[in-house]
Every structure is written in C-alpha cells, then in structure tokens.
C-alpha cells in the first residue's frame, strides 16, 4: 500500500518529493471512470495554483472534467508529454502519468488530504 501519497476528494493525488516539491496526478480510479481520454489542457510553469481550485481540464469522449489543485503553490514543472500520450494516465497513473509538480506554499496542506486508507474507503463506497 502506498503510504506517501495523499488524495483529494476530487481524485487528484499528491506526493512530496525529496526536493520539497509536490507531484500531482490523477488517481487510477478517476482515469478508469473517465474512459477514452481525448484532450488535456495544463497550466504553464510559473502559474500559481490554489488548493481546491481548477488548474487544468481533461476531456474524454463525452465529458470535460476539471482538475483541482490538492494544495496551493507555484507550478514548477508540467508533464508536457502527457497531452500527446494520454494513455500514460491509465498505464502508469502514479509514475510517468504525473501531471504537474508544485512548490508548495504550505506543505502542511498535505496533511489535510486523504491518506491511502481513507481514499480507498471513498472510492470503495463510490463503486458500490
């Protein structure tokens, strides 16, 4: 079980890296639920994101979904290859399918997110 990842209720995950940045992606559950992804729009490096607010959008065949920042901070890296290889989100959502990296304004915000067990309970409940 992955202990270092935290999750937002809106299904983004966040993981603190050794350099102090926080990597953000989309949970496997959310990717599977969206199905047939066709387009993704991401922020630019240097953009400021606020916890709980939209930082990007992803389109599947019939739905556009907002991506919400799990924590506040500055975007220091964007997975620029992702929009051209959306299948990566399904193949490796917690590795090469990462979306953005944030320099957190307050790393303590990570503690407000769901841990693995709480997220599993959330999506377990949603799948029944």
């Amino acid at each position, binding site marked *: 079980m992955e202990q270092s990842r935290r999750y937002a209720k809106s299904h983004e995950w966040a993981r603190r890296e050794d350099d102090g940045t926080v990597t953000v992606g989309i949970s496997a559950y959310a990717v599977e*639920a969206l199905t047939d992804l066709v*387009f993704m729009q991401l922020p630019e490096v240097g953009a400021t994101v606020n916890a709980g607010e*939209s930082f990007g*959008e992803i389109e599947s065949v*019939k*739905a556009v979904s907002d991506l919400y920042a799990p924590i506040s901070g500055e975007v220091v890296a964007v997975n620029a290859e992702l929009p051209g290889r959306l299948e990566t989100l399904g193949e490796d959502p917690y590795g090469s399918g990462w979306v953005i990296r944030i320099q957190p304004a307050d790393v303590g915000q990570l503690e407000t997110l769901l841990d693995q067990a709480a997220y599993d309970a959330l999506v377990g409940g949603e799948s029944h």
Partner: protein
Amino acid sequence: MTRPPFEGATAGTSAPEFCGLTVWRDPPAAGPWNMAADEALARTAEQSGRVLVRLYGWQPDTVSLGGFQPFAESERQSELAGWPIVRRPSGGGAIVHGSDLTYCLALPMQHPWSRRPEDLYTAVHGALVDELCHRGVAAAMVSAELAATVPADNFFCFNRRAFGDVIITTSGGGTMAAGSKVLGSAQRRLAGVVLQHGSLLLRRHPSMGGAGSHAGLADLADGVGGGSSKLVVCWLSRLAERLGGPLTEMPGVSWAADDTDLPRRARWYAADDWLRRR
C-alpha cells in the same frame, strides 16, 4: 492559459436532498446567455443539493461547439457561414440549435449517478427511450460496440455515435431511417456538480444543409415531434421516477432576477478568449 468557466468553482460540500426533479422552461436566448444561465443552474444545484433541469431554445439560431473543439474547424464548415457560434463548457461535438430542444441538467456530485459519466447518460437517455418506445417509436441507446465503429471526432455531434446516444431505428410509418440520432448529451464535471447538456432534435433545421443537416423526431416518427411539449413532460416524469421523486415544473425563469453575475458571465462566454480558446 485561458481562465476556465465556472470561475472560482471549488470542491464545496452541501447536504444532499435528492427528491425528484425540478424543471424550468426558459425563454429562447442567445448562446452566451444560455451558457451563463447553465452555469448559474449548476451553482444552484451544488448549493441546494437538488437535481435541476432547465429547458430552452435559442434566439437567434446558433451553433454550439464542444468545450475543446478547435474554432478553426468551425470556420472550415462552409454551411456555418454567417451562423452565430458559442462554445459550451461541456464536451462533445458541434450542435446546430434552432430546431431542437436543449436541456441542461445539474446533478450534485453526491448523487450516485455522478460517479461515472455513463451513469447519468444512461438515466436521462434511457428515460427518453422508454417514453418513445411507449409511443411505438423504435428507439434505442447506442451500444458500446456500435459506438466503437463510428469515428468519435466528427465535427457535428449528430454525426457521432457515442455510448448511450438515442437513435431511432425505424420511422413510425415503416420507412427505414436506421440509426438516426435524435438525442446526444455531453458533460462538464466539476468537483461539486455535474452539468449535462443535451439536444433533442425535434425536426430537420430548415436552413442548415450539408453535414450539419439531420432528421429530427418529427421527420422520423409521425406525430411524435409535433407533440414535443407533452413528450418532454412524459420523458422528464420518467426521469424523476428514476430519481425517486416527483417532477416539479417551476414558473418563471431558472435564474434570479437580481443575479448581477449572469450578464457578466454572458459577456465572458461571448468574448474571444473563451470562444477561440482553441
């Protein structure tokens, strides 16, 4: 990056209170106003925890683009010359509005139907299929297998076939009109609410030709499209039943008269930053 619609939308919470379906019949309006009114409906649904629908038309007739369709593609469609164009916040393909009935359904994210996009499609579209079949019309939802055989990137929504789209397989008069799509929908999924747009094609648009011209209910099933108002009430009543409550038809319009944000958001939807975002 272009600022997204639903500015300031966050992962809010509200107490769910699912008790049927509340519907407004709004007067026809211009595209940007309709998009802003849909946004206002979504906020009301999120805050109230109720499932809300508004039905509306368009004045003037308008083409709406899916949220990420390249604007340049609309410029390459010769049949769209001179048509007003608006961009929806929802996905999917371009729709010619003017001979259709458009709906916007706002579903709080706490509702079980919000969890997967196809759950809400199936509920809304299945209710229409049930009503059409009850009236003797050979209607069905597109299967995943059929959807996989049709390119998903056609410019016009009604030339696409996605899982759950409602098609008429034969006309009431017995003339084959295999697989004519009469209802297509697309969603915008936010943290607190799902907004689902849909277009029920009532009849072929009289001044649209080429790839944008599609037969509607009245063309495919005698006597059904002409009685569209009653059909829609029966359709939504079936949907309300699936929600476990009554259909409540509201007087007046869906937005608050003193909502000063609505005109501002309509201007935002009309601006090139949004219209030509891609």
